[in-house]
């Protein structure tokens, strides 16, 4: 949990994942593709971010998944606290925003 009531300090990896989710990569596999991180890093990091209230998850509606003939996915979304932390992380890791925004522009 964040110390002294302020934004938690994230590692570069966690900040990258948070930035990816913020940029619209809302499920694990897309974040893996976006960041190039392995599944063994991305999913545990998302668990911790969710535990700390920086992101929250929601299951996709089954009807949508059925229409597309695929299993329903779990989507992640950045919370208000997550946005604050991300802002602080962007200051700490100035290249983070540039790296992901360029990727974002290319992918989305």
């Amino acid at each position: 949990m964040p110390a002294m009531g302020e934004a938690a300090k994230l590692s570069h990896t966690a900040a990258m994942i948070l930035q990816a989710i913020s940029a619209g990569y809302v499920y694990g596999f897309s974040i893996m593709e976006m960041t190039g991180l392995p599944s063994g890093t991305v999913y545990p990091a998302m668990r911790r971010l969710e535990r700390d209230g920086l992101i929250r998850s929601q299951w996709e509606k089954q009807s949508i998944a059925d229409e597309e003939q695929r299993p329903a996915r779990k989507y992640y979304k950045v919370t208000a606290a997550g946005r604050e932390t991300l802002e602080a992380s962007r200051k700490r890791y100035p290249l983070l925003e540039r790296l992901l925004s360029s990727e974002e522009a290319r992918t989305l």
Partner: protein
Amino acid sequence: MRPAAETACHALHAGLLRAAALLVPAGQRGEWQREWQAELWHVSRSCEESKFCWQAQREIAEFCLGAFPDALCVRRQMHDAAEPAADVHGSAAQCLVGLLAAALLAMLAAGLLPGLRAENDAARYQVKHGLMVVWDGYRTASASQPSISQGLYEDWKTTRQRYFDGLAYYRMEHEVASLPFARRSWNVAHATANFFVVMGIPVRLAAAPDEAERGLPQVILSHAAWVRDFNADPAAAGRVMRMGSRWVRIAGVTPAGAWRLPGEPEAWLLEDDAQLKAEGGNGRLGYLIAHLSRTGLREGWDGEHISITARGPQADALDLNGSAIATQIVGPWALCRFALFLALLALPAVTSVSLGESNFSFHRPSLKRRALRVLFLSAKLALIATIACYGSMLAGYMRTSEFSGAAECVQLVACFLICLLGFRWALIDQRQRCPVCLRRVTHPAQVGLASRTFLGWNGTEMICMGGHTLLHVPSLPTSWFSSQRWMYLDASWEFLFADSPVW
């Protein structure tokens, strides 16, 4: 195409996920598996775009292997949520729970002590104020010897008394009581029927006797005899037994008390005046119990003793003495209150009563934090007082089953010591608790050298593991650094306390 290999790979991937799922706590396993299977579906679709490829299968397998660290992470999170030991250690809650448990234990143990119940009874059932035993100073040197004839009692009883509003009389006899398993010689007081009314002691009476037992003489047992000879059996009251040459019915048991009557009766045989006179004859002496009226209390009674000049049976003047039957006892709760008061008086002599509120800056915790700190200290002190109260009763009455002056002394001393040392500990503990989160500061570090005290401070630094404060305690109080000070940590210290950056 190699469908068998593809099937085997799919089975391997599913097997890896299932194996990893076993690491996830059962409550979360279903959702965890659902997420990973959905992700696997998408990964497989993305990797196996056209035909079977070992490279793709390897990537999918690598993806599935990532499920293991994730499963372990979920498991660890569940474990941390269930046992937040690190957060609890040294916390205010841990301290209060420990004290509360000790207080409950002491209460439970003290509640089981028969001596404590006897002490409580003694405090509750005290003899009336102004009750005394009258004795003739010409016949005996003290109130413990019988000196009053029944004739005087009857004379006083039948005439109007200015100084007394209650009179009772008893005479001691040794009689053999046939107990359930033995015969024992008892000191039996043959007393007038109004004896316990004058004494003002509520006797625990048995149920009304049935028709066959209605004519039997009624005996009241002393609490000590009931405990000693009947093992405090509640069914003893109402029993018929042989005492001396007659059958008697045990009508009740007196409560334990601090009162000690001359002759130390173990049982009271209640009789009417005529029967008492017939048995004793005119020559036998006994004890006269008298209760002073308001006039008597006002004139001459010093709380312990009174001199009485009365008219004798032959209209002659009699100089008599009256001695109080028992001094008022304070009872265990009043003793605790007194010990608590003494401990509070003595506390400044054993420790500083300051809470070490000074700090290096003008920063002050919020009002809510300060209120919580005060509440925490109050709760600690209240629990320590409770522990002291019940613990001292435990110490005092562990070895006695009835009222005892020695037990009262032990209780008073024990309660005082526990309160004094406990309050001292509470204040010292409070001084070492972070004003923000109430955790105990830890990791003491020695700073400076004693030999350079006048060049710079030396002492101990301790830090709050919540990252709020640093406590400086000087080893040698000086004019510029006499007591401990708190330093509130700013943002530059955060790196020490931020969540582990390994992830």
